[in-house]
């Protein structure tokens, strides 16, 4: 049996970024993954590197997202140089579009509230009416009421990011084991043993990044990570000539020229099936935002499950009863990839998560339940 410094369980975007960061920090890493049909939100991601609107009544989350968006400027070129894979990261900012006045007013109030919580001059959001938006977004539909621009936002290709992280942690000496789903974690001499159907792995530390798999595994090591699947569906069109310079919450044109149309959110348990009524709804809304997408043929629709905690904010925590076992759960694997690779992974390597991240411990759910 090989022994490792850290076993990373789960190789989606959170696991891939954590494994990359650990390998980059010189740790000997084993990454245990499911098979080809793993439930993998990374593969159904809209691809936004997004700050705008995140962190309502939780400024720490807004700051964490902003930090990651900034660190993306280091991560993307680093991965490209190391692996030759261009994640397509662009950081020109992004637009939130609102179709009607009510939504616009709600969004404005929410963004202002986040800005207030961050402090004067810390949250640079520009609100715009349809005309102002259209000067940046040619082809914008007349029915869009208004929106906002933030310079923090951007986008990337989530699949190429996943590919680059996998190639990256392996280039740094990490080892990848597909079709090795972890079933048990137990304390052992010098750390932990992780059991899979194809063998047992040993390491000083364990990083749980298994998406929905975190809930069950965390329970084995004295942690509680309640997760609710949030069904999200999106449409992807054929390639077309470039028309959209910025990502928006409704429509995003990829570097390849395809157009992503988003997206829905609903709770249907673990059903990952696509729904034709959502196809229609997405088509209907995004055509309002950019009528010119109406002529484009849809190549596929995707549904994936966001790993949502009860309050929507991430969980980062080290087990008290099983020191050296860390858990990370979040629904923003693209945005937070840089923070996971360049910050969170170093904390796992060092054996401690900083105190300022304590608001992300799962104990907060116990308090809510008690209240």
């Amino acid at each position, binding site marked *: 049996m090989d022994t490792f410094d850290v076993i990373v369980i789960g190789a989606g975007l959170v696991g891939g970024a954590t494994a990359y960061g650990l390998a980059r920090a010189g740790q000997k890493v084993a990454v245990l993954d499911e098979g080809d049909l793993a439930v993998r939100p990374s593969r159904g991601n809209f691809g*936004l590197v997004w700050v*705008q609107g995140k962190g309502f009544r939780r400024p720490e*989350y807004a700051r964490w997202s902003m930090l990651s968006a900034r660190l993306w400027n280091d991560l993307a070129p680093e991965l490209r140089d190391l692996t030759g894979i261009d994640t397509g990261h662009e950081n020109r900012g992004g637009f939130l579009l609102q179709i009607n006045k009510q939504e616009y007013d709600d969004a404005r109030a929410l963004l202002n509230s986040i800005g207030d919580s961050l402090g004067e001059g810390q949250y640079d959001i520009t609100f715009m009416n349809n005309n102002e938006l259209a000067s940046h977004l040619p082809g914008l539909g007349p029915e869009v009421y208004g929106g906002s621009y933030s310079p923090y936002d951007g986008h990337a290709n989530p699949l190429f990011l996943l590919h680059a992280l996998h190639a990256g942690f392996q280039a740094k000496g990490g080892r990848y084991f597909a079709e090795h789903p972890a079933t048990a974690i137990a304390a052992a001499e010098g750390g932990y043993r992780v059991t899979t159907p194809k063998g047992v792995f040993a390491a000083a530390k364990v990083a749980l990044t298994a998406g929905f798999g975190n809930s069950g595994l965390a329970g084995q090591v004295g942690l509680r990570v309640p997760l609710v699947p949030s069904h999200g569906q999106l449409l992807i069109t054929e390639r077309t000539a470039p028309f959209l310079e910025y990502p928006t919450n409704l429509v995003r044109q990829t570097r390849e020229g395809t157009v992503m149309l988003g997206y829905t959110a609903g709770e249907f348990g673990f059903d990952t099936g696509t729904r034709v009524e959502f196809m229609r709804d997405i088509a209907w809304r995004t055509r309002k935002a950019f009528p010119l997408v109406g002529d484009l043929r849809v190549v*596929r*629709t995707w549904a994936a499950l966001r790993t949502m905690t009860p309050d929507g904010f991430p969980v980062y925590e080290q087990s008290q009863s099983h020191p050296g076992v860390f858990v990370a759960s979040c629904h923003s694997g693209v945005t937070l990839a840089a923070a996971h690779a360049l910050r969170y992974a170093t904390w796992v390597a060092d054996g401690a998560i900083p105190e300022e991240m304590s608001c992300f411990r799962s104990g907060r759910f116990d308090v809510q339940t008690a209240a």
Partner: protein
Amino acid sequence: MSGTREPDCDLAVIGGGPAGLAAAAAAAAQGLSTVLIDEQPVPGGQIYRNIEGISGGRPDLARILGDDYGYGAGLAQAFRASGATHMAETAVWELDGAGGLGVIGPEGARLMRARRVIVAVGAMERPAPRPGWTLPGVMALGACQTLLKQAGQVPDVPTVIVGSGPLVFLVAKQLVEAGAPPRAILETTPRSNMGRAVGALPGALGSLGDILKGLRWIGQIKRAGVVIEKGVEGVRFTGDGALARVEYRIGGAEKSRDAALALVHEGVVPNYQLAEAAGCQVVWDEVQLCWRTRADAWGATSQDAIAVAGDCVGIGGALAAEAAGRLAGLDAAHRLGRIDAAKRDSLAAEAHRTIARLAGVRRFLDLLYRPAEEVLAPPDDDTLLCRCEEVTAGEIRRVAGLGCPGPNQAKAFTRAGMGPCQGRMCGLAVSTVLARARGVPVAEVGHYRVRPPLKPVTVDQLADMAGIEAEVAALGGLPTGSDGDAEPALETEGGGTR
């Protein structure tokens, strides 16, 4: 999507080839309200394409195409007379396991539901990735035959046929009779196949007439001056912006031929994707080297409301497809309460016998024309597997080296299979290359998961689709197209305002 919807018909048959025509006619004859949905304007599918037009008005083409083709006229006629509704020029872009269908036709997109669905969408030619196979001038052999049937066109440039299988000799013979013979047939059938096939020959004797007919064609082709070269390997297509030359090896010797048109064929494989999208179980066929829907003798699948018939279940040819269609149509009438099991069985006896008789020669053909390994898993790293996104065999091998367990992860990493053909052209090769790289069977590697829409639908057509009111109501009222009141307030990457 169909749980809340009243059925529009008893039976929807998808596909207008022999299986679909026979299924629809058999079901309608037993009183089922039957709709046949087909992409083409007229019945016939690919094998009997344009059969009504040719049997009615082009005796010259009817002679060239032969009696086996002309046979389809009776099938089309029986379908026309059956009372089944013909939904022509209509594609199915969504199918669920309960009989819900999304269709797109001349009047736009709509949803409908049938109490039972028979998927009879036939086969496609096995894509044969080789260096240069995307050059203009390299075409599927079946495409050449389609042009003959549909437009009365034949090649008028130097042409070679490259490939393996019965269709090679049928089309060559038809081109000879049309006065447009190819210069050469470069036969890629591995020489070692014959040894394996001989064992299956006794079982094929029931179709001895067909085998002798094939031998007569070969004689006719040779007499017309067509060169037939056997044991062709290592085919590459070269040219600057268009095909100029076919390079190949025979027994280790390098050879080449000038050609402006190369017609390639390596057998046909089932269109399994539609049934798979409906949740039907799909299995790997180790003899035919393709994915097919798991079905019983009546075409019933793992999904209650879905049956399959014809070449989309496994390659059997036109006559077997027709018989299978009849069985599925009769079984639909039985399941929907029109006839009892005894009547179904008596009406089905002949179709069962036909299928059993044809199975013997099929086994022989499968073994004789088993594609070469270099066709299944192209050895040259520069060969494009995914024509749409231009992903090479070498790229797939590289991600296999990163531990990619199967084609879905490989698709995510490389974009192979993400283009407009949705992986239909590269799926088999990507799975096979991954399997070889990992040293495991293709069945273990798996296949691309199918993503709707299965046929192109525009954003406008989706937004304006008809027949979706019940689904919208069941969801508690999504926008109906007039106002924007249901826009979620502030959704971002992960659904978080939080």
